[in-house]
């Protein structure tokens, strides 16, 4: 035995420090990417805009009263004077002018006569950094224009349906579509996913069949989502059209051309999409329940189901819930499969039932980003902000619920 020890400490520590630095760098990069993402979106969602009125508001001053302070009679006179006879008759048919309130008339004057349009938009960054230059440009190029700071996310945006006019366009239809679709997804994917996980984890014997099923579930979790769109198109939209269109329930009203391209089809497609994720996650949650808990229940003469129902499920429910919410977040953001099964890209009518035509937030965003006008880019950014807020609130709900449940258990 002639071996000696050469501790070589400095080299070992240097090596360690280098790895440590690499890991820190990786974290910094990840944070930087996320920050860039958020900044880009926020940059587009807020900023100055130059508004141009088709008819100058100052010209509409009547009896020395500015437009925004005019009463019903003055507004009616303005409408009489400026609105084309054809448009007047059309609006009269909708609702007689005599029956309209003051605010309604004011909104009409704004939309039909003043008709403000956005002449130029600026990003938040530009608005903050080069405010002077923007003001100068506005004064020079649009002397009649009105320079205002605009939040593209606003109440009107949330509550208005889709429109071809950027100022009028909103995401109410898309939000309703997303919420209804996700409810369908949850209603199908949660019970089926948990059920399958319980069977696989608690009941199934280890055989080539269960192993094959298991491997396939793992593979399905990695299948690109557009493939699920093809499946949804073939099975739900076409194959099960009588059901998904609501025809056999007598729900398909005349003039409704949704066929199978309904909220129900979309929800089912997304349910199939996240099913493997929910199953795998629930299986992991069940696996994490210690065997001693199962044994203690069985040893007092409980049946297998009683053991699962009263001990295993309560002990794993926090993890199951967290995983389900994460899967649902993923489903909310899915676009490709919905495009394949035929989401409506321009829908101004709110969904009335699960057999309605649908659009969702990601579809809406996708549609707006593919338009050339700058305004729609800002609208897309605003919709992204809403989508992210929706997801963040879902995830925080999951975390809070999990922590609350976790406090109650310990093993």
């Amino acid at each position, binding site marked *: 035995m002639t071996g000696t020890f050469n501790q070589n400490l400095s080299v070992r520590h240097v090596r360690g420090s280098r790895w440590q630095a690499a890991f820190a760098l990786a974290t910094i990069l990840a944070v930087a990417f996320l920050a860039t993402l958020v900044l880009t979106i926020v940059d587009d969602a807020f900023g100055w805009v130059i508004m141009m009125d088709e008819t100058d508001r100052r010209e509409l001053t009547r009896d020395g009263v500015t437009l925004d302070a005019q009463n019903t009679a003055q507004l009616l006179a303005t409408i009489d004077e400026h609105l084309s006879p054809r448009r007047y008759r059309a609006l009269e048919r909708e609702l007689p002018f005599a029956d309209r309130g003051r605010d309604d008339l004011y909104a009409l004057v704004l939309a039909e006569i003043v008709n403000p349009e956005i002449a130029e938009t600026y990003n938040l960054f530009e608005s903050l950094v080069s405010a002077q230059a923007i003001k100068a440009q506005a004064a020079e190029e649009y002397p009649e224009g009105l320079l205002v700071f605009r939040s593209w996310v606003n109440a009107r945006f949330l509550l208005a349906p889709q429109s071809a006019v950027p100022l009028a366009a909103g995401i109410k239809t898309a939000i309703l579509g997303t919420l209804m679709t996700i409810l369908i997804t949850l209603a199908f994917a949660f019970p089926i996913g948990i059920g399958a996980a319980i069977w696989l984890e608690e009941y199934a*014997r*280890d055989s080539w069949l269960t192993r094959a099923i298991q491997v396939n579930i793992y593979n399905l979790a990695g299948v690109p989502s557009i493939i699920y769109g093809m499946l949804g198109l073939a099975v739900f939209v076409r194959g099960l059209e009588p059901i998904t269109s609501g025809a056999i329930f007598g729900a398909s009203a005349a003039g409704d051309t949704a066929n199978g391209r309904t909220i129900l089809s979309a929800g089912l497609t997304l349910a199939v999409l996240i099913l493997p994720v929910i199953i795998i996650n629930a299986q992991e949650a069940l696996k994490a329940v210690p*065997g*001693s*808990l*199962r*044994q*203690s*229940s*069985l*040893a*007092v*003469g*409980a*049946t297998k189901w*009683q053991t699962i129902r*009263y*001990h295993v499920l*309560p*002990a794993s429910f926090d993890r199951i819930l967290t995983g389900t919410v994460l899967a649902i977040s993923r489903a909310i953001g899915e676009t490709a499969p919905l495009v394949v099964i035929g989401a409506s890209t321009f829908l101004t009518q709110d969904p009335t039932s699960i057999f309605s035509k649908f659009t969702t937030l990601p579809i809406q965003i996708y549609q707006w980003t593919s338009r050339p006008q700058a305004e729609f880019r800002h609208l897309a950014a605003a919709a992204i902000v809403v989508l992210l807020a929706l997801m963040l609130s879902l995830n925080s709900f999951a975390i809070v619920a999990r922590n609350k449940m976790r406090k*109650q*258990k*310990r*093993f």
Partner: protein
Amino acid sequence: MQHTPTTDRFEVALGSEESAYALETRNLNIYYGDSRAVNELSMGFDRRKVTAIIGPSGCGKSTALRSFNRMNELIASARTEGEVLFHGVNVYDPGVDPVQVRRWIGMVFQKPNPFSKSIHENIAWGARINGYTGDFDELVEDSLKRVALWDEVKDKLKESAYALSGGQQQRLCIARAVALKPEILLMDEPTSALDPISTAKIEDLLDELKKQYTIIIVTHNMQQAGRVSDRTAFMLLGDLVEYADTKELFFNPRDERTENYISGRFG
């Protein structure tokens, strides 16, 4: 599946003293895959006595114990041959429901494993799912008194069982088993995770409990076997080497291997 006849068989058999033993094994073989963990075990356990099973790690004593109330079959690779007779009924008979067996043959585990529920519910739950019709508060009080835990917990029955110390938790687990009014209590190294004071309390308890129950305890600790048991079995490599009155086995072992083990020469 129809389990009702089994229920009747146990309850009819229960009153009769037809068997000399509370529990008897005949040619019991237990395998894990291809390897045999328990080898032709034939032994009887006296009524209302404490029987200890000792032996080095891997000798099959825990496996044997878990097979008495069919807990061992929860291990997927385990296979059991032979008979375990409880009141003349083989618990491995195809018509016997393991759930029924476990209700009469209770079990206490190595690590305390109370339910993630209140102290009250830890006792009452097992009774409730087994269709107990009496007063639950009474049952909880009686069971806790039997394990000398009542005075310590009577004011916090609604609190989580995890708020108790390890020793208290283990006594709660014993009370949980006792609440079902079983015939036999199986204890798998019940004090190995406990401190000496908690251990002493549980050992004292066994003296009380054996007035009503047949107790079979597996232990690593030979002193413990000597202190608490009336009869002791020594197992080695899956074989029952020697089985005798405790004093006899410790002071006058017949087999050389027993002598080597209890004198600390291996194990």
